[in-house]
């Protein structure tokens, strides 16, 4: 499954970049996030409760960040396991473009899913993924702009 989107955030690029690397901000913004810790630089471990159609499960996952291209962008890859509900793995390329005082964040992601969540059909998965990423970035935009203002 491929996902892509573009979001405008009312904050300078440095702030956006810093926030994207801040476990506290991410924990606050990721829908259903219960735990998120940085195990080592560039490595995050998370527990997230997800509900996709009739399947609700706690996914435990690990995300690795490649920041060699910072602050123009970065890539991330990760895997989440939801036990009987299935699993998800994938990666995303994120680019951050300055536009005056604001930043345009665009991403393309490729996600493979397996198990029960995959069987429910792409019509549910794609919609849910879009909704969740929308939720994340709305919240993220709010948090980052607040931090920049304060």
């Amino acid at each position: 499954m491929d996902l892509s989107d573009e979001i405008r955030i009312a904050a300078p690029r440095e702030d956006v970049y810093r926030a994207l690397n801040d476990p506290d901000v991410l924990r606050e913004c990721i829908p259903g996030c219960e735990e998120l810790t940085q195990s080592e630089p560039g490595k995050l471990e998370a527990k997230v409760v997800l509900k996709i159609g009739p399947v609700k499960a706690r996914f435990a996952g690990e995300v690795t960040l490649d920041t060699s291209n910072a602050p123009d962008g970065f890539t991330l890859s990760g895997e989440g396991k939801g036990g009987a509900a299935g699993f998800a793995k994938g990666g995303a390329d994120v680019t951050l473009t300055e536009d005056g005082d604001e930043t345009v964040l665009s991403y393309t992601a490729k996600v493979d899913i397996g198990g029960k969540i995959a069987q429910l059909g792409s019509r549910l998965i794609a919609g849910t993924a879009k909704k969740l990423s929308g939720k994340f970035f709305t919240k993220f935009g709010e948090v980052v702009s607040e931090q920049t203002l304060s």
Partner: protein
Amino acid sequence: MNDQTMTPEERAANLKGMGSSRKRVEDVRFTQGKGNYVDDIKLDGMLFGDFVRSPYAHARVVSVNKDAALALPGVIAVLTAEDLSPLGLHWMPTLAGDKQMVLADGKVLFQGQEVAYVVAEDRYIAADAVELVEVEYEELPVLTDPFEALKSDVVLREDLEGQTEGAHGPRKHHNHIFTWEQGDKDTTEAVLAEADVVAEEMVYYHRTHPCPLETCGCVASMDKVTGKLTLYGTFQAPHAIRTVVSLISGVAEHNIRVISPDIGGGFGNKVGAYAGYVCSVVASIVTGQPVKWVEDRMENLMSTAFARDYWMQGKIAATKDGKITGLWCHTTADHGGFDACADPTKFPAGFMNICTGSYDIPTAYLAVDGVYTNKAPGGVAYRCSFRVTEAAYFIERMIEVLAIKLNMDAAELRRINFIKADQFPYQSALGWEYDSGDYHTAWDKALKAVDYEGLRAEQAQRIEDFKAGKTRKLLGIGLTHFTEIVGAGPVKNCDILGLGMFDSCEIRIHPTGSAIARLGTISQGQGHATTFAQIIASEIGLPADDITLEEGDTDTAPYGLGTYGSRSTPVAGAATAMAARKIRAKAQMIAAYLLEVHDDDVEWDVDRFAVKGAPERFKTMKEIAFAAYNQAIPGLEPGLEAVSYYDPPNMTYPFGAYVCVMEIDVDTGEWEVRQFYALDDCGTRINPMIIEGQVHGGVTEALAIAMGQEIAYDEMGNVKTGTLMDFFLPTAWETPNYITDHTVTPSPHHPIGAKGVGESPNVGGVPAFSNAVHDAFRPFGLTQSHMPHDHWRIWKIANGLGMHG
């Protein structure tokens, strides 16, 4: 009592015997919600089992952590392969001579494979506990394409590594299971080389699933005091299951009682032995409490037996005026992770060698290669006799492809190649002896009924209108003449796990002239209690309404191989007639004694024996029954009962002619069945109403398969059609009206001439629907397009032919 006022015809009608459209006695309880299915069985202290299943199609199982699950209140046990291996039960034999993991032993080979079995006090706790079992997997490369699997270095079955010999001969590759060859390869290839015309095509019959409304399940109950194990389950072959359970578990066969209660459809899905049965039995033996396991819909679709998945490469040779001279077929059969096909032992590709169909083809060759992939195991006969629907689809597509090549009318091409009525019994090039048939009569009747000439004229006009831009709808005329091979089968060449495929019937006549009959088969909706009583009624002259019929309890019913492959009427139906005839033979002696004449001086007359030449002197069957229990007759034992075990001398060969007329919208891909005509010849007809019902159901399942139903996998081995949202199950909305018709060509070797009908409509229906789609696009250049023909795929055909401008 000696009623002389009724005519023989009136007396026969009162019996509601063979030929009567007697209403189904089963429906009294089914229509009132009083059926008794496995999930209705509730025993004291019953526990519930549920599976932890693999989300991966191919992975190593690194560890299974049960701690969190076991800590949940109400969880009794969590079983893994490690727990089963000391009992030797972590693997089980399959029906195809392979073995299959009961619970994942080190790795998983398909998505949905059973990894651990949770036992809990209720099914909700069990489901919660399944979520708490932590399994660590290490992903392995996934093979979902059988052609890739045969080239890949990835070894799917590490347990078989180094084994170059399988249950059915040499293995050519580590993902290869068997090669099965039939017919004469050299002669066939020589015929192809010299032929005027050779048509060649790859015909794919996609993977689908029987999807019975009731999923698979069981209740295992071990009585630790008596040492008796009772196993209730959705078994299409209860006696064979008892033997298999005994052999696997070590519990003596007399201590096992298998009961198949009411079954909500089987269609082949409930023939095999599944991990759920083994785990439930083990759990009950260990806990001493009954354990119930019932699949949910997703589990049923993704893990218990699938059907089809045959890639059939065909070549058909003919003279330039259309006489077929040879047929060649190479099939690549995708069997999934384990070879769990349900076929008679000597037939690893079932009766695929009926693929010469209804045609007099002098030479033929068939080879089938079985292949392992990362898909669910199975390969059952979904409403057909072993692989017969694949064979029928193959030949009926090849005929159409040849017709295109010859630029001939497909109806005429069939007609000139049919086996003629005077050629029966007919020896086919691939080794079968067709018992009887009259294909030309059936064909002509069918074409006349649908006004074939008129349809073709209408189609020609439609093509002109389409080309002139007056319509966007095409007309397809789908033809099929199929020949089935059912009623497995003769013990000399048909067995399953070494058990000969005979069947049985036991009849006891009660003193007041009613009766009970028990059979080795089991109805899953076929209406056995209705129809088998009709056979007995006609044979011994007691009303069908006075005959109880029982099946499915191995403690009371005689041993039999069960119900699948349209074998109930050809085999158990024959046993029923033979047992009834034994009773009639004894009744004749009793009647002669009562009438004080010699045995040879009485003759059978509908429901009585009468003195020859003196029809007013007779004893009815009812009187004879009473005499059997109250008269001391010299030289005769008291009582009136008989049992017959019937080993059929040959298969039976039902056939039929189907025509489907379909409207197709080239812009949306939507289709509409305008007319469906089904002529079936199943030999002697026992209950015309039930036959009609069988045809309606079978054609509807054929509609599903041809027009949308499939088990599809993505590249990662995910089942993409694991719910009824994606898996097409037609409702009344999608189901068209059907016109049914018949001819009657009795089987010469069956005691009552019956051939079996339950599966014919599926065997004939699928090519009829598919051929209609192909026929609609034939004038625009289409030769072959794979099923299922859903709207999207039909749209793609039109698009590919440049019909969207």
